[in-house]
């Protein structure tokens, strides 16, 4: 049972790390700010989401698990809204009006 949970943790965290890597490559390689923001949101949603999902079986009781999930939800909330605000700030002088 523990072995199965450990395998789940390793695979989910690795998948999360893959999304972090992909998002970072996107941040460095994409041509303009809006597409770079798009790459970053993938890191917030899927990368951190998969890392948290993978860590859930290792959490120390239900309250720690709840804390992990709330961290993910808070990062989702602030990430989505800050992305909107940055996009709104650059849009008027961006390439397409």
């Amino acid at each position, binding site marked *: 049972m523990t072995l199965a949970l450990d395998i789940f943790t390793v695979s989910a965290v690795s998948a999360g790390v893959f999304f972090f890597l992909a998002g970072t490559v996107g941040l460095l390689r994409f041509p303009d700010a809006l597409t770079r923001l798009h790459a970053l949101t993938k890191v917030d949603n899927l990368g951190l989401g998969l890392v948290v999902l993978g860590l859930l079986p290792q959490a120390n009781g239900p309250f720690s698990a709840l804390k992990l999930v709330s961290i993910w939800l*808070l990062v989702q*909330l*602030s990430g989505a*809204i800050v992305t*909107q*605000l940055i996009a*709104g700030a650059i849009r008027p002088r961006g390439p397409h009006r």
Partner: protein
Amino acid sequence: MTILSVFDIGLVVLILGIGASTIAVREAFAAVIGFVVYGLLLAIAWVRLSAVDVALTEAAIGGGMTGMLLLGAVARLRFAEGNDVRTSLPTRLAAGVMCALIAAGLAIAILSPPDPIPTLAPMVMEHLAQSGLGNPVAGVLFVYRALDTLLEKVVLILALLGVWSLAPDSVWGGIPGLRVYARPGSTLTFLAQLLPPVGIVVAFYMCWVGAKEPGGAFQGGTVLAAMWLLVMIAGLKRIPSISQSWLRLLLVVGPVIFLAIGLAGMVLANAFLDYPAGYAKPLIVAVEVALTLSIGVALGMLASGPPERVRQP
């Protein structure tokens, strides 16, 4: 070499790289962003050193709050004239030599410590139970070095007075010049309505849990200040003028209660800032709650800047 030491070496290389690029970069805005990233990486380094209290403070104050103050300064400098004056070569050389001397002194102190390294940690752990606290950092801050902690909070108020005294006489007692982006129905308004209830709970949780686990008044107060600033920037609450009496009361309530308990210690216990036996923990928690409020208001006002508008009647 274990995987953790690989991680540590990578972290140190990153911190040094970000620190160097913060100094080398020409544009002030990019330097501030570098400084914030530096603060967050340093927080991870403190976690690796098992100093979670310091890590929380570094992330909140070093990365977050100072970053915001510096960004405000950069925004002001853009509109200020005559800021492209170049410092003369001797001044820069002198600054470089002084920095190198300080760095060398720190390196000598850290690389060749006396043997055995002097420490009071075993004594703190031995007597911690008497205070009723579980977090040794809180024990040192509020029991053994309480005077330092008290003065630290007074310094925060002095810093705020310094910012306020930048105001011209005509707007003294007026409203700080924080920029407000009030657009009803915008995503910022949504965030400012949704996040503060969560943030206030987190702030008081950090303050409460500080007695037995990492956390405390400074970390909680910073979260409180961030929530207040968010609500003010979104235009949901007006920025108070600095002559409001509730504002000034909240600013001093923490240090005043701390000082009052300290003075009472001279009568009820044995010395200034000593706690009567058995009452240490409730008194410390009361001081922490009051300090959280004061620190929150002081940091919020520091970030709001000096008064710029006359108070509306």
